[in-house]
C-alpha cells in the first residue's frame, strides 16, 4: 500500500505539469488548445479524454517497464537459469480486455461527436452561408444570401452558425482555423465538403491552409474576424456600395486597366483574383504581411506592406499568379500611388 502511494506521489506532479503544459500552449487566436468556439471546444474535450486515457496507459507501461528493468537485471555470478514461462492465460486475457474497454470509452463520445458536428446546415435559415473557394494561394469567401464576395478576411457575425461549403479552384487545400474548429479539405466540384462552426466572442482568429498545395503553401494564411451582428450588417452594406476609385483620374485609369481586369472593387472589375473592396482595412496584405492593429505587437503599417507586395509579389509569395505591376508597365510612382490608394481604402463598419 505504502509503495503504491509512493508511485502515485511521483506521478501526480507529472500529470499536473502535463495539464499545465497543455493549457498554457500557444496563442488564443491560433491554438487548438485554447478553443474560442463550441466546435473547437468539443474537439478539445475529446482530445482531453483521449489524452487522459493514454496517460493512464503510459503510466502503467512505464511503471512496469521501470520495475522490470531495475528488479530483473542480471547480477554478477548469477548462473542459474530463469524459469522458462510459456505465458499466462489470465494475464493475457486481462491485457486484451482492458484496452478493449478503453477503446470503447473513447469510441462512444467519438461517434457521438462525429454525428453532432456532421450536421448539414446549408439549408438552415438561421445560419450564415459561406462558400469558400481556395486558390493557389488565396482564399475567396462568397456569401450567397447577401450576394457579396470577399477574400482573405472572413467576416462573420458572433454567435451565428456559419454553414460552409468548401471547394477548390485548382489543387487540394485544407481550410483550418484551429481555435474555432478542425480542418476540412477543399475538393474540386463534385465532392464538395460541408461543415460549420460559430464564434461566440468578437475577435480575429488565424486561419491556415493545412494541405500541401505548392510553393507558397506556408503563406496561404487567412483571418476569421468575428464582429457583432450590427457591425456585420453594416459591413454587408458597405461591401455592396458602389466602388471607390482613386481620386486622381490618371491613376484611376491605370488602376482600371491594369488591376481591375482580374480584381474587383465594389461593383467593378473581375472575379479572377482576390476582391479588393475595403482592402486597406484588412488584417494582412496578401494574407501573410500582417498589418499593424491596436493591441497587437506585430505588424507593419498597411501602406508599407502594400508597397512591399506591389513592388515584388514573387518575393512575398513564391509562385503566385499575380503579374508584377512593374512588368505591366507601371512606374514606381504609379505603384506607390496605387498602394497608397489601396491602403486608405477602408470600410467603416466596426
Amino acid at each position, binding site marked *: 500500500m505504502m509503495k503504491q502511494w509512493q508511485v502515485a506521489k511521483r506521478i501526480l506532479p507529472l500529470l499536473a505539469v502535463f495539464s499545465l503544459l497543455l493549457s498554457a*500552449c500557444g496563442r488564443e487566436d491560433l491554438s487548438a488548445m485554447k478553443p474560442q468556439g463550441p466546435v473547437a471546444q468539443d474537439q478539445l474535450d475529446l*482530445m482531453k479524454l483521449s489524452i487522459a486515457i493514454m496517460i493512464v496507459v503510459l503510466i502503467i507501461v512505464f511503471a512496469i*517497464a521501470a520495475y522490470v528493468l531495475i528488479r530483473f*537485471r542480471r547480477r554478477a555470478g548469477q548462473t542459474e537459469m530463469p524459469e522458462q514461462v510459456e505465458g499466462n492465460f489470465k494475464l493475457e486475457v486481462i491485457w486484451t480486455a482492458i484496452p478493449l474497454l478503453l477503446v470503447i470509452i473513447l469510441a462512444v463520445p*467519438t461517434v457521438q461527436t462525429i454525428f453532432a458536428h456532421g450536421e448539414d446546415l446549408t439549408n438552415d435559415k438561421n445560419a450564415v452561408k459561406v462558400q469558400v473557394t481556395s486558390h493557389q494561394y488565396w482564399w475567396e469567401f462568397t456569401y450567397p444570401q447577401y450576394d457579396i464576395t470577399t477574400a482573405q478576411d472572413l467576416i462573420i457575425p458572433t454567435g451565428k452558425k456559419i454553414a460552409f461549403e468548401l471547394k477548390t479552384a485548382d489543387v487540394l487545400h485544407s481550410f483550418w482555423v484551429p481555435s474555432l474548429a478542425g480542418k476540412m479539405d477543399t*475538393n474540386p466540384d463534385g465532392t464538395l465538403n460541408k461543415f460549420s462552426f460559430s464564434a461566440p466572442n468578437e475577435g480575429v482568429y488565424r486561419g491556415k491552409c493545412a494541405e500541401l498545395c505548392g510553393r507558397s503553401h506556408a503563406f496561404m494564411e487567412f483571418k476569421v474576424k468575428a464582429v457583432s451582428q450590427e457591425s456585420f450588417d453594416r459591413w454587408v452594406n458597405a461591401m455592396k456600395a458602389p466602388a471607390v476609385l482613386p481620386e486622381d483620374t490618371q491613376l484611376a485609369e491605370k488602376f482600371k486597366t491594369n488591376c481591375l481586369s482580374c480584381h474587383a472593387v465594389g461593383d467593378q472589375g473581375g472575379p479572377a483574383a482576390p476582391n479588393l473592396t475595403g482592402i486597406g482595412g484588412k488584417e494582412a496584405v496578401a494574407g501573410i504581411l500582417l498589418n499593424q492593429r491596436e493591441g497587437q505587437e506585430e505588424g507593419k503599417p498597411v501602406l508599407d506592406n502594400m508597397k512591399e507586395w506591389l513592388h515584388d509579389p514573387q518575393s512575398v509569395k513564391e509562385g503566385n499568379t499575380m503579374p508584377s505591376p512593374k512588368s505591366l508597365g507601371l512606374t514606381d510612382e504609379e505603384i506607390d500611388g496605387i498602394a497608397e490608394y489601396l491602403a486608405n481604402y477602408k470600410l467603416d463598419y466596426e
Partner: protein
Amino acid sequence: MAHAHSVKRYRGLMDWITTVDHKKIAVLYLIAGGFFFGIGGIEAILIRIQLMKPMNTFVSAQVFNELITMHGTTMIFLGVMPIIFAIMNAVVPLQIGARDVAFPFVNALGFWTFLFGGLLLNLSWVMGGAPDAGWTAYTPLSSAAYSESHGVDFYTIGLQIAGLGTLIGGINFLATIITMRAPGMSYMRMPMFTWTTFITSAIILFAFPAITVGLVLLTFDRILGANFFDVANGGNPVLWQHIFWIFGHPEVYILILPAFGIISEVIPTFSRKRLFGYSSMVFATILIAFLGFMVWAHHMFTTGLGNVANALFSISTMLIAVPTGIKIFNWLFTMWGGQIRFTAANLFAVGFVPTFVMGGVTGVMLASAPADFQFHDTYFVVAHFHYVIVGGLVLGLFAGLHYWWPKMFGRILSETLGKWTFWTFMIGFQLTFFVQHFLGLMGMQRRIVTYLPNQDFDLLNLVSSIGAFLMGVGVIIFLINIVITTRKPVDAPNDPWEDGRTLEWTIPSPPPEYNFKQTPLVRGIDAYWKEKMAGNKEMTPAEPVGSIHMPSATPLPFVMSVGIFIAGLGLMFSKDKFELEFMNIIFNNYIVVIIGLLITFGAMALRSLYDDHGWHIEPEDQDEKGART
C-alpha cells in the same frame, strides 16, 4: 550422384554483381539501404536547419517541397525497407534451417530492381528537379498541370521499379517460409522474426499491387495524357487518395512488424527467457496485418467521406490498439523474472518499448475523427508517425543490426560505441519529436517552408532542430563503429551472446555458403535452446552428410534491372524536346524505351532458354569455417 558441372566463380566486384547467395544479397541491401538512409538523413537535417527559426531563407520554398517529398519517399521506400530486407535475407533462411531462399535468382533480381529504382528516383536531384508534391503525391498537385518539372515522373517510375523489387522479395520470402522450414519446424515453432517476416511478406503481396496500379495511372495521366484524376475530364483526385492509402496504411505495418519481430528475438535472448505468450504474439501479428487493411480512410477523415465512414474507420483504427497492447505487455512480461543484460542491442530493444507505446497512444488519439480534424496535417501527426517509424522501426533496426552483426560479418560491434549510439540517438530523437506534438496542437501545420514569428513556434522548433543534429551524431557514431569493427579479425563464435535460442546461432559466424552442412531436426520452439537445455552442444541432424546443391552465380538479374532502368528513363523523356536532333529521334519515338525493354526481355529469354542446373559442394569441400571474410 552429382552432375559434373564446372562452376563459374566470379571475383571482386563481379562476385557482388552476380551473387545469388542470400547472405551476400543481405549485405548488398544493407549497403544500398544505408546509402539511401544517409541521403534521407541529410535531407532531414536540411529541413530542420530551415525550420530552426521563423522566416528563415536557408532554402527556397521549391527546394523545401522537394526536400520533404524526397525525405519521406527515400526513408520509407529506399532507406528502412531495404535495411529490413537486409536483415530478413541475412536471418530468415538461417532461422528456419534452410540453405537459401526459395528463388535465389529472383532474390537477386529483387535487389537490383530496388537499387536501380532508387537510383533513378535520386537522379532527379541532378536532372532538373526532384518530386515536389509530398511523399503522398496527392493529385492534382502531382499532375502535369501543377507539377511541371520531371520530378513526379521520377517518383512514379522510380518507385514503380523499386516496388517491383519489394514485391518480388515478398513473394520469395512467402515461398521460402512456406516450403523450406527444417523438419520439425511447424508454424507454431517458427521464431517470431520469421513469423513477422512471413506476415509482412503477405502484406506486401496484397498492398503493393495497389500502389503499382496507382503509379501506373498517375504515369498515364502525366506522360500519356490520361484523365484518371482530372475532374474536368471525368476523373477524381480523391480516387488517388484511396489507392494511395489502401497501400499506404498497410505499408506502415510492412515497416513495423519486422521491428516487432526483432524485438521479440532480442528481448528473450538478453532476458534468458522464452518469449511470453508466443501464440498470442502470433495471433496479434496476424490480427494487426488484417486490421491494417481495414483502416486506410483514417488518413482521409478531413477529405469528407461522411459521418458513417468516419465513424467506422475511427472504431476500426482504435481496435488496432488491442493486439498492439498484447504485444507490449508480452514483451514486458518476457523480461519479468528474467536476467536482463544491457548489451547495446538490448538497450535499443528496451528503448523501443516505451517509445513505441508513445507512438501507439498518439495513434489512438488520431483515430478519433473529430479530434483528428485538429491533428491532421499538423506537426502532431509528424510527431506521431516519427515516433512509430523512427522510435519504433529505426530503434528496432539498430537492435537487430547490433544483435545479428556478428552472425552476418563474424565480428561483434563495439559495445561501448553501441551504447554511445543508443544514448545520443535516443535523447536526440525524444528532443526532436516530443515537442512536435505541441507544435501541432498550437497550430503549426506540416510541410510549411517557414512560419511567422510570435506564434510560440520559435523555441520548440529550435529544440527540435537541435535534437535532429544529435540524432545525426548517433548515426555517425554507428558508422564509426562499423568501420572500426570491420578492421578487426573475424573471431565471433557461433553463439556470441551465449544465450542464443534459435537455429542461426548453431552455425559458424559468418555462416558457410551452404549455411547448414546437415539440415537440423527441430524438436520444439527455440530449437537451439531446447538442445542446450538437454545438454547437447549442437543440433541433431535430420539428414546424413551429402553433396549440397547450389545455384549458379549470374549477372542476368543485374542486366534485367539495367534494362528496366533505361526503359524508365526513356519513357519519362519521351515528350521532351532536346537540342540535339538525334536525342529527339531516339526519345520521342520510344526507341530508348524499346532498347531498355529489349535488354530486359533478352535477359529473361536467356534465363529461360539456357538450362542452368547449378553446382554441388561435395562433402570433402564442406569445411566448417565461414565462406566469407
